[in-house]
């Protein structure tokens, strides 16, 4: 980048020098203007004007003209193009001047274009250069890295080599040690065995010596003292030690050995015969099993298998005959036939196994992954079926239409009508039922509403009465006989108010209400409105459709003062259920409105 930037000014300065050298000859002030014109054409119009004004004055027009014509000629334009309109005058022949100007402009534009292109190219070049430099540096970095890596690997390799060497030396020393230890062990063992032998020999010698000494001493104590000798346990007399006796001992020994072997042989024989019996039995059963199922399973090879089994049976018979003889031949035959049979059985079992596995595979494929062919087959089948069904339906429809169109006699029409009417009737019935239900709901609601209205009216009346009595009291209190009135106010109240018991209750409930409304006043700023509040409470009640007034009031209180009573909980539940009821009713209303 830097290089490029530094290169450009020198180039331009070169150009400028060239121009200036020319301009210098004639005009010194034009020097900078040319420079300026080289740079920007946009700036030319503004600055050049002032420059031109400086360049050409009223006085030096002919010089200017001549200069310009010279310049133009040097640029290769027609030198005669710019001439003074009148020789020696200040005017200028306009057409050639304009032409020259135009040409100059053209040249200038072309130059600008080329310059631009060059600049662009330069930019591109510089960009590519930059990229190249970047990639170059990157590659350099990579190279450096890989070189470093390589050296690291070299280092590790070297270390590993060292390690291997040390380990090898270790191994060698260990091996040496093992060998040494082994040799030590061996030498110790040999030493030990040698010592042991020596000790044993010594001990033996000592024993010998001891026994000799003891024998020589003729130990008096060494004796047997028997009252009278006993007879042999078998009642025989003892024998002399002769060769005959020793021979008989040998005989005895061999006899016992022989008898043992004989017994063993007998046992083996027994076992053998048992095994043979089992083999025979097995063979028979095998033949029995194989012969009936062979034709069915093999089919094509049934005949030769039959022949085989025949042959085998024969062989079996013969072997059975020869069993008693128990000669080599019979045994061979038996084992051969058994082997054959066994092979057959095995192949049969394998086949069965294969079948079973196939069946299982099918089962599995049904369960999990259906083989493609089966799947396609099935699909094809299904498609066929669907097609058939469609066709069937189509024909049915066609037939029905035909019947309707062609043979539209009264009977069928009546029948059809009947059908339609029946259906319609049914539908109407259902609708009727629905309507009835809705009606009933509506009725119930209305009843509730009227009840509530009646109650409201009654309460209003009571309130009015109360109000009147209160006013009366107030009025009476305002009279000069206050003290008398006050002491017997309660009495007066009871005496003055001629009320039935339910009304009494009403008043009491109203008092409660008033109490509860002290909380309500928070929301209602006007205490004077308290008279109208009970009616709103009633409205609440009616809206929530609470038949029991007292409980409704409780619930109200419960809502307002959450922790007021123990009953609060369940009353709230009650209220909830009621709310739900209300919803149902409202729904019913909606339905009504819809219908």
């Amino acid at each position: 980048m830097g290089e490029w930037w530094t290169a450009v000014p020198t180039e331009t300065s070169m150009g400028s020098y060239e121009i200036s050298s020319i301009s210098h000859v004639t005009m010194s002030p034009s020097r900078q203007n040319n420079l300026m014109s080289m740079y920007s054409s946009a700036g030319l119009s503004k600055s050049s004007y002032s420059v031109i004004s400086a360049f050409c004055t009223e006085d030096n027009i002919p010089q200017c003209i001549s200069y310009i014509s010279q310049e133009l000629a040097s640029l290769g334009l027609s030198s005669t193009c710019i001439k003074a309109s009148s020789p020696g005058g200040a005017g200028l022949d306009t057409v050639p001047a304009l032409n020259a100007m135009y040409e100059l402009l053209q040249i200038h534009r072309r130059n600008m274009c080329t310059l631009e292109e060059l600049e662009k190219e330069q930019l591109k070049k510089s960009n590519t250069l930059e990229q190249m430099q970047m990639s170059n540096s990157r590659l350099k970095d990579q190279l450096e890295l890989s070189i470093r890596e390589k050296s690291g690997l070299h280092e590790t390799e070297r270390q590993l080599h060292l390690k291997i060497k040390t380990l090898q030396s270790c191994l060698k020393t260990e091996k040496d040690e093992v060998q040494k230890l082994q040799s030590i062990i061996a030498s110790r063992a040999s030493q030990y065995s040698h010592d042991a032998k020596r000790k044993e020999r010594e001990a033996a010698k000592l024993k010998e010596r001891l026994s000799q000494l003891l024998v020589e001493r003729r130990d008096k104590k060494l004796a047997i003292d028997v009252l009278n000798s006993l007879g042999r346990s078998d009642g025989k007399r003892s024998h002399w030690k002769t060769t005959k006796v020793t021979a008989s001992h040998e005989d005895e020994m061999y006899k016992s050995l022989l008898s043992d072997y004989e017994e063993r042989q007998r046992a083996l024989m027994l076992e053998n015969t048992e095994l043979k019996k089992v083999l025979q039995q097995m063979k028979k059963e095998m033949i029995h099993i194989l012969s009936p199922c062979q034709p069915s399973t093999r089919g094509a090879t049934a005949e030769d298998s039959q022949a085989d089994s025949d042959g085998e049976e024969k062989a079996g018979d013969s072997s059975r005959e020869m069993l008693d003889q128990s000669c080599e031949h019979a045994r061979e035959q038996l084992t051969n036939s058994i082997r054959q049979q066994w092979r057959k059985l095995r192949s049969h079992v394998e086949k069965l196994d294969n079948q079973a596995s196939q069946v299982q595979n099918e089962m599995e494929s049904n369960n999990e992954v259906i083989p493609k062919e089966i799947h396609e087959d099935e699909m094809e089948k299904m498609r066929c079926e669907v097609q058939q069904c469609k066709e069937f339906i189509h024909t049915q429809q066609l037939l029905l239409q035909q019947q309707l169109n062609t043979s539209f006699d009264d009977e069928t029409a009546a029948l059809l009508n009947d059908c339609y009417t029946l259906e319609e009737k049914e539908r109407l019935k259902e609708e009727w039922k629905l309507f009835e239900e809705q009606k009933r709901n509506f009725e119930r609601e209305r009843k509730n509403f009227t009840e509530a209205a009646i109650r409201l009216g009654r309460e209003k009346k009571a309130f009015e009465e109360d109000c009147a009595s209160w006013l009366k009291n107030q009025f009476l209190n305002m009279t000069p006989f206050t003290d008398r009135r006050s002491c017997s106010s309660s009495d007066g109240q009871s005496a003055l108010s001629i009320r039935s018991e339910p009304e009494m209750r009403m008043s009491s409930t109203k008092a409660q209400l008033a109490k509860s409304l002290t909380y309500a006043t928070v929301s209602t700023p006007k205490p004077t409105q308290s008279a109208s509040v009970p009616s709103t409470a009633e409205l609440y009640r009616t809206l929530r459709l609470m038949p029991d007034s007292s409980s409704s009031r409780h619930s109200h209180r419960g809502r307002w003062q959450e922790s007021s009573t123990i009953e609060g909980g369940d009353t709230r539940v009650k209220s909830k259920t009621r709310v739900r009821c209300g919803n149902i009713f409202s729904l019913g209303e909606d339905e009504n409105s819809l219908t």
Partner: protein
Amino acid sequence: MNFSELFKQSNQLCKVSPDGKYLATCVQYRLVIRDVSTLQILQLYTCLDQITHMEWASDSLFILCAMYKRGLVQVWSLEQPDWHCKIDEGSIGLVSSRWSPDGRHILNTTEFHLRITVWSLCTKAVSYIKYPKACQKGTDFSRDGCYMALAERRDCKDYVSVFVCDDWHLLRHFETETQDLAGLEWSPNGCVLAVWDSCLEYKVLLYSLDGRLLSTYSAYEWSLGVKSVTWSPSSQFLAIGSYDEKVRILNHITWKKIAQFDHPATINNAKAVVYKEVERRTAVGSDDLSLHNITIGTTLFNTQSKYEICPLPVQIPVVKPDPDRANPKIGVSTLAFSSDSRYLATKNDNMASVVWIWDMQKMNLEAVLEQTSAVRCFQWDPRRPRLALCTANTKLYLWSPAGCVSVQVPTEGGFQVQSLSWHGSGDSLILLGKEQLCLCFMDTDQEDKAHLQSQDGKQTESQEMDPVSTSEHHPPCTSKRP
């Protein structure tokens, strides 16, 4: 099940005669002969010193009593109480004394195994056998009493000599391919002699009666080897217990291993039944806690126990042996076949409280008995597949294919069963304590009935039998007590 009262004994010397009629017990320097059925004292012999060994002759007519310290052997006759015989080995010393199978010869091994002296009671003749080897089991008589195999050591090599017991004629003498022979044992039919090497090397050699080497078996190398060897009564199997906690069974035809029984610490073999002894303290009321009760005996401290069938898998307590000590407590040290060769009972030393019972027909684990304390001794009934075991407490334990029973021995004074042995008929058991003994009579008829009943329901739960304290059929002997 009835129990007799306690009798005194010393050195655990108490043996029933081979014909099953008499019971001989040693009390210090006296030998007491009782009738097994009545427990009446029949004879009383007095020896010269405290008896250290006692043995019946095969014909049940004579008893030898050895006093090893004095180098003395005294023989008593049951038929002729006046008859006596005294053998003095003198200053050469005595470490072992035994009858020959004919009951007319006595074989005494001298100190340092210098020699074996054979004394004949018929002719008073003495013969010596030199170079006997001092090892685990250096001599063995064949079951029919014809032959005696003796391990010898000469010139640092092992030899086996086979003698004819009739006249002590040396029948065969051959060198064995062992480093250090540890033991030998005749097969019950007397035709094969099994010889095994010391524990340093796993090697079992099988020799024919005529000295031919039939087979050699070695399961592994470089580790402690054979710990115990036992023939099955049918001579079909040879069971080898080793330090690797396994039992290997060889067959008698090819002498190859046909089965291997591991003793794992965790049992999850679904075919096996694991019986676990569960102790339960008897509830004692506060008023019972009087001084009287405490002084009377151990009834207060005796806990009742019963077997419970554990659901699998079962973890068995294992004691890790000290590897730095010789003869580590690990491996199968005790093997016993039932009389019908049907079952094999084993004990692995690092699982001391457990007895394993293997089925030899199915070749798998049949039952595992996990006791609360270490098993001291177990023995099969000589007639039935029934195993009796004891764990040095006041209880007797019995196993049969039908189930498992724990029986409290109804005695006073803290009688602890240290060891036990069956009567030849399988009708009674001798329970040996430290200084006492007690006879336990099996009620065979009832037993059989119970057996039959329990056969229906394969594995009936282990029922606890209430011990009957006094025997009805066998009135306890109180007449003469030594």
